């Protein structure tokens, strides 16, 4: 990581009323990379990226720094954020069917995005919309241009949302659990689509998911989050082969395997702590077999370069990596 990152998040904190749900996130996003963000429900995956784009409701207090190509986005004026959204950083969401305005036709909603981000107007804008619909694999485009959102399936709606996101030719696409609401075959198609689009357009992809399997399919790098913190980051292959944080180990063990069957499925014991009653030390300590007194009293910092882990008792890094670092 020698060139300046496309996007740099430093010490991002988000508080709803009295409960802090994101506790200082540090992340770099390089141009064109695919970063997977994983973690159990409620660990702050969505909030982190909504905060980065200023999309949280007014009662959320955000602090820290989010820089896109050097431009500060955290608590930036509305006009700055509006110029970045869609054009530099686009975002798609978990529930595609409710992300399109139900009382307006789909075509005009896409045209809206195209006219917002390009100089195309009228028929040209419509042609561009049809091109985008083709790009994301919507069949029978001309006829479906004038349909309403409820006339599309969940998978097709997500394709439409992706088409809308592509209208601004963004540098980063944040996909917040884009396949969670879809059934398995459709999930795989959307994952393929996202992977293909990334290769074709060269945009960076932030893929938020609690499905490590899906993440390993589309991403180069993973950030594992727990209770509002990043607890481990690294290359996908490294993390799968040598997970260092006990939470990552737990997550990997809970991926269902084709050969294993339900009995072999290990789940992490215990539950995610309530964000408003976090322990003074490591938030994972109560569920961790390696925990000791240090873990109960002091929060482990995220240490390491490129591959980093936040644990007082992290497993040693992969020996070959260590040698490579020494050489």
């Amino acid at each position: 990581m020698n060139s300046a990152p496309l996007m740099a998040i430093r010490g991002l904190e988000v508080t709803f009323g009295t409960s802090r749900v994101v506790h200082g996130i540090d992340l770099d996003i390089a141009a064109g990379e695919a970063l997977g963000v994983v973690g159990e429900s409620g660990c702050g995956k969505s909030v982190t990226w909504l905060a980065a784009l200023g999309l949280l409701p007014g009662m959320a207090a955000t602090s820290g720094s989010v820089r896109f190509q050097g431009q500060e986005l955290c608590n930036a004026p509305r006009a700055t954020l509006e110029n970045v959204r869609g054009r530099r950083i686009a975002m798609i969401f978990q529930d595609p069917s409710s992300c399109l305005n139900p009382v307006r036709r789909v075509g005009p909603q896409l045209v809206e995005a195209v006219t917002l981000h390009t100089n195309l107007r009228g028929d040209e804008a419509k042609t561009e919309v049809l091109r985008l619909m083709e790009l994301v694999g919507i069949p029978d485009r001309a006829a479906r241009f004038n349909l309403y959102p409820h006339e599309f399936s969940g998978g097709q709606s997500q394709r439409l949302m992706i088409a809308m996101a592509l209208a601004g030719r963004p540098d980063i696409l944040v996909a917040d659990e884009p396949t969670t609401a879809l059934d398995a075959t459709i999930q795989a198609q959307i994952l393929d689509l996202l992977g293909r689009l990334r290769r074709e357009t060269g945009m960076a992809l932030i893929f938020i998911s609690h499905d490590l399997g899906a993440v390993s399919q589309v991403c180069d790098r993973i950030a594992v989050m727990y209770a509002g913190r990043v607890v481990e980051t690294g290359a996908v292959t490294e993390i799968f082969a040598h997970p260092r944080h006990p939470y990552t180990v737990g997550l990997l063990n809970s991926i269902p395997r084709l050969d294993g069957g339900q009995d072999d499925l290990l789940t992490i014991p215990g539950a995610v702590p309530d964000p408003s009653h976090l322990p003074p030390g490591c938030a994972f300590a109560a569920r961790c077999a390696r925990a000791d007194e240090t873990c109960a009293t002091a929060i482990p910092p995220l240490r390491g370069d490129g591959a980093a882990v936040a644990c007082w008792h992290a497993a040693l890094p992969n020996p070959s990596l260590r040698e490579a670092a020494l050489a």
Partner: protein
Amino acid sequence: MMSFALTRLLRAFATLMLVITFAFSILRLSGDPAIAVLGPMAPAAALNAFREAWGLTEPFWVQYSKYVLSIFAGDFGDSMRDGLPALPLVLERVPATLSLTIPSLILTLTIGIPAGIVAALHRNSLLDRTVILAAVAGFTVPSFVVGLVLVLIFSVTLGVLPSGGQGSWLHGVLPIITMSTVSIGLVARYSRSAMLEVLNAPYIRAASAKGLKWRDVIRLHALPNAILPLLTIIGLMVGSLIAGSVVVESIFSWPGMGRLLIISVAARDLAVVQCILILITVLMVCANLTVDLLQAWLDPKSRNKAHA
């Protein structure tokens, strides 16, 4: 769409029949028109002659079927007080009532909806709290209290506006304000919650995420969606304004349908009361029917169902 319209029409007709039946029975069971019209001291012979003349001695069911049949023939009966046909007597009062209800409806929509929407857009601000407070005050204080307070201030104390009767447009000011406070309050509150619900919808966040300016998000995605549920409320408002005219016209001695209703009920003037109730029902049913059809036509989901 056709079958939808047809079921709505049938339902409207059923409502009308229910009101006719109800008005007919209650009035007949709750007092003797002969005594009400001729007075309690009238001789028994005169009372009997009166009952005979108005067909009140016939069995209930005979009276009822005769009445319903004559309504469909366009005959609403005669007023018992002066023997004139009831329908023209009532219709001649309609313009006076409309001259209060239509301005009130316009005021309700032009003040209530914007106030609610602005409050929702500035949720939890001082402005929002003020609107909520005013709205709740508006629809909880009974309109006769509002009317009397207004008369005390503007007619009795300041002497700038007339306290009753019909003459210049100034006579309409206090009745119209009195009549619209309740509905402005209700509409403001409903608009606020309809708008808040829309603002929380995922498609609003998605519209912001694609880079639309906040102003355009509101204009293109929030307002059209918030108006849809409001249509129902607007239909109900028409009804509540007409009902409100009974009270308001009595306070301000306004010669409309509402005041005629009060007078006729007191006098047990059966034909007139029934005629007014039927007319009011027809108005309310028509308002709701229009709103239902408009809503079905504007909402793509129900429009598609109708095509299928």
